[in-house]
């Protein structure tokens, strides 16, 4: 038996500040197998970002345990790629150099990394803005830079916090299909937070629906679609409609409970 890629047991996270105490997550138990693609949807403020950060070792659990690839998470994890909700770019570096930060820090081969960065720039339509500083980029372009950065080193686990939120519908669908392809080809384990129900169903092998704060897992929905997906096909598949409306129902009930 191989270890789960991500193993979360009885996770509770409570933020304490001088003012108040906020329980962001409560009693989360969840496994992600290697090569799975789990998407998470849930109301704003329910603790999705917090969950990803706990897995990455950036936020310490108040109680419960988390392990990544069989190792207990005790501090920041580096065998991952993380797309933050905000782009988190270095404002003194151009787009391409922001992407290459990943390679510099991990000591990847320069030529390889440069080639891959150029491919990703092409893929995300950032050509012509390689040297533009973050403040010279539009919101969606900044997000794409952050995306390229997280993909550069082909991590075994990818944690993505609304990576396509600032993109228009078309670009988003294109990049969704690309991400699907990358996932299939590299067998990466991916956990992706999104507000788009369509995206959640399209990308995930499994959709986790979370409740309102304090966040619990309301329901797990297995997405019974072929691994290789295209929007044209998926949208016309009855499974898609069924899952989408079920998720919508769950979110609605969660919202009123």
């Amino acid at each position: 038996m191989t270890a789960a890629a991500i193993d979360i047991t009885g996770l509770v996270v409570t933020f304490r500040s001088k003012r108040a105490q906020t329980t962001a997550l409560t009693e989360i138990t969840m496994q992600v197998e290697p090569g799975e693609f789990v998407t998470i949807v849930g109301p704003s403020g329910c603790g999705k970002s917090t969950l990803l950060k706990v897995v990455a070792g950036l936020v310490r659990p108040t109680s419960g345990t988390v392990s990544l690839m069989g190792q207990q998470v005790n501090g920041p994890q580096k065998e991952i790629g993380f797309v933050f909700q905000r782009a988190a770019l270095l404002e003194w570096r151009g787009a391409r150099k922001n992407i290459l930060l990943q390679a510099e820090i991990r000591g990847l081969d320069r030529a390889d990394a440069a080639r891959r960065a150029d491919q990703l720039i092409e893929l995300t339509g950032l050509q012509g803005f390689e040297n533009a500083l973050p403040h010279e980029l539009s919101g969606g372009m900044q997000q794409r830079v952050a995306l390229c950065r997280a993909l550069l080193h082909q991590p075994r686990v990818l944690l993505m916090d609304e990576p396509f939120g600032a993109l228009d519908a078309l670009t988003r669908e294109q990049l969704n299909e690309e991400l699907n392809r990358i996932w299939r080809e590299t067998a990466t384990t991916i956990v992706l937070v999104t507000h788009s129900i369509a995206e959640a169903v399209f990308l995930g092998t499994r959709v986790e629906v979370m409740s309102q704060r304090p966040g619990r897992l309301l329901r797990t929905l297995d997405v019974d679609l072929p691994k290789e997906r295209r929007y044209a096909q998926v949208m016309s598949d009855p499974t898609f409609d069924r899952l989408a409306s079920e998720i919508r129902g769950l979110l609605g009930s969660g919202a009123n409970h």
Partner: protein
Amino acid sequence: MTSPLRRLAAATTNTWRPALVLAVVLVAWWVVAARQVVPNYLVPRPEQVWQTLTGQWDFLMRNSFVTLWETILGFVLAALIGLGAAVLIAYSKTMERALYPIVLFAQVIPKIAIAPLLIVWFGFGLTPKIILAVLIAFFPVVISGVAGLRSTDPELLDLSATMGASPWQTFRKIRFPNALPHLMAGLKVAVTLAVVGAVVGEFVGATEGLGYVLLVANGNLDAPMLFADLFLMSAIGIALFAVIEAAEALLIPWHASRRAGTPLTTS
């Protein structure tokens, strides 16, 4: 309009206001001196200072270079040591508790009081002047370095942590560039203080340098020489300050404070 003319016009619009200020200061000085509001042996007339400057140009230049050299050495050392201390303090709570009192102590004791000790230990050469310049100049570097290193966006630190960055990498790629705008402010203060430090060092035990010339001029009640000397000191300070400003423009063109157009036009 031809191009050189246009360039001249542009230069004029850029400079006439500071030039006006300079003119006002000069005229005010001249009035004070010429009408002897303050006697001439305390505040000389501009032309007396000018005569001293031109008449003793070689002598003054020789001494200026001595002071300039001490200042530059002192400043560079102060910047390095200050940054080192800032890194230690910003990274380690223990170091903060242990170093801060020492650093503060070094800062608040009047340097003129420890100058005799320095002479005793290091003689009358270059060393005590540089040590004084360092002692006077390094504190602002420490403080602004600490402030800059600590003000890094926590999310960027999270980012570098997930990349498995070593502390040194985090420092070099993230914290340090992020601290630069703060640090440059500290360096600007430091470079002007380094001038003061070198001069104070020369007060205590020297046979050359602008500080020594100042002492002599003071003893001889030679006001034109005193003013010429002060003028050269500030010229050194202002020139070095301008160098740091230029370095800033090169190093942090990305910062909000340096973005063309954006800063202060909207309100």
